[in-house]
């Protein structure tokens, strides 16, 4: 009998170990998405702004890690009231709960990389014209406060979770939130010089490096297996393991369908296969399935992704028409498709309702957009958020970083 008890203990610990390991591997994959965003954005901006976007990406990830450790995780998860609106304040990550399924540290690690993802979305949308330092200050606020507060509302057990809002891996909480912050920034920032003509023409500003953009997309695709797969939170029994498998399958299917849908749509409309649209299509497929990668059948997941891929193409061209300049399409991919992702959940998940989804989407958007708008505005009035015309023309690499991205290569200016 004693032996049995001992063995039971061993098995319990083994489960704990496997679930912790699964969290850590998932977290490492999501961390890898930081590289994906960096490469995607570096490929889609002009070469004269490439060093700065790389700098922004590595610094935002780093700042997110620090701020979420210092206060963000505490705000989001520690000592909060069930169903509340205002989280408790505090520092650091708290202490390991008795009988937890996995180690607290692995949980923190898995959560922190999500914050960085939200912030990465912003950097792409405001690229090529925003001051480095203003951006970094905004990063501090978003990752320390804005994101953790809304994160608490759903994942931390706050009022949105009580209201039945359902967002499995964060189409709204992470992606639409990031896009909302980005939108506020872009509205205050204005379009890049030369992007829109006086008579409403749209002048494309092609990205400088397609292989980088493609690599970034593949990295994000891979990392998303950790993003969605890890969000099941448990793996160590048959049901959970099966669920994680289903999530991998659906995530992959949605991304593939998003890419193919964008490809076909491009062919039909313009007769060509615009690679950057296909990349956005794949990412749209991923965002689309993220609100619920578990409930749909693989076929339905493919459909969800395909619609996401179609949507993103129209969103990108529409935003251009209303002169919202987003060099990498982040607002379309994460915002428009993120919202769509939330609204499609009730079709396959009986626990979700359109009302709750709409409510949640509205709350997240309103909070993140408003809070971000205020912060951006303060920055604009004080240190300024936009580089000078001359710096913009010369490229922000020179003014902000002092290092060019490709100093030896002769480029068309």
């Amino acid at each position, binding site marked *: 009998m004693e032996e049995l008890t001992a063995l039971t203990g061993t098995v319990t610990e083994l489960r704990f170990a496997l679930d912790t390991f699964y969290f850590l591997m998932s977290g490492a994959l999501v961390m890898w998405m930081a590289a994906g965003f960096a490469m995607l954005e570096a490929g889609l901006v002009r070469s004269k702004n490439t060093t700065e976007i790389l700098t922004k990406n590595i610094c935002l990830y780093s700042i997110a890690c620090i701020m979420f450790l210092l206060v963000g995780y505490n705000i989001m998860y520690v000592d909060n009231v069930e169903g509340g609106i205002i989280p408790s304040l505090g520092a650091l990550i708290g202490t390991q709960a008795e009988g937890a399924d996995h180690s607290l540290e692995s949980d923190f690690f898995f959560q922190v990389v999500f914050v960085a993802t939200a912030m990465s979305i912003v950097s792409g949308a405001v690229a090529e014209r925003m001051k480095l330092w203003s951006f970094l200050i905004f990063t501090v606020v978003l990752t320390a406060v804005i994101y953790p507060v809304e994160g608490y509302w759903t994942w931390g057990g706050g009022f949105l979770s009580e209201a039945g809002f359902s967002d499995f891996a964060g189409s709204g909480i992470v992606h639409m939130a990031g896009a909302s912050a980005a939108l506020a920034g872009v509205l205050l920032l204005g379009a890049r010089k030369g992007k829109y003509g006086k008579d409403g023409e749209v002048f494309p500003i092609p990205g400088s490096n397609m292989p980088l953009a493609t690599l970034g997309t593949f990295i994000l695709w891979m990392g998303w297996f950790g993003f969605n797969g890890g969000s099941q939170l448990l793996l160590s029994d048959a049901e959970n393991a099966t669920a994680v498998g289903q999530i991998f399958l659906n995530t992959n299917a949605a991304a593939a369908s998003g890419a193919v849908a964008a490809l076909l749509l491009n062919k039909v409309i313009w007769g060509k296969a615009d690679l950057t649209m296909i990349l956005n299509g794949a990412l749209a497929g991923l965002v689309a399935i993220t609100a619920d990668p578990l409930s749909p059948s693989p076929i339905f997941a493919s459909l969800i992704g395909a619609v996401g891929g179609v949507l993103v193409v129209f969103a990108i061209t529409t935003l251009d028409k209303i002169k919202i300049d987003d060099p990498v399409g982040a607002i379309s991919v994460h915002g428009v498709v993120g919202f769509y992702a939330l609204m499609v959940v009730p079709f396959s998940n009986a626990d979700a309702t359109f009302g709750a989804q709409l409510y949640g989407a509205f709350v997240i958007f309103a909070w993140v957009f408003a809070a971000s708008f205020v912060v951006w505005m303060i920055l604009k009035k004080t240190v300024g958020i936009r580089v000078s015309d001359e710096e913009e*023309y010369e490229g922000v690499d*020179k003014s902000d970083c*002092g*290092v*060019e991205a490709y100093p030896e290569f*002769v*480029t068309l*200016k």
Partner: protein
Amino acid sequence: MKLISAIIKPFKLDDVREAISDVGIEGLTVSEVRGFGRQKGHTELYRGAEYQVDFLPKVKLEIAVKAEDAERVIEAISKSAHTGKIGDGKIFVYDLESAVRIRTGEIDTAAL
């Protein structure tokens, strides 16, 4: 015939091209060059050491024109490339002895 060679700031290229075409000239050849002059380059920083990047990216236009058009073209360039700030560039004019349009074999002014 004259060959007009103008070194201008890169971001003025589109303006200059328009101005030239307004005076009836359609053909030109452009190359990326680096300029050294009174306008100084900028200082870059790399790993804690500053260094001077002397050269400035410029664009060189070469335009072959009939002698009688030269004046107008030069004026068009002067105006459209002008910012008033140092580094606006130079226009040089040479005598062009002959010209051939490869496609048709037309020569001289007919070839421009």
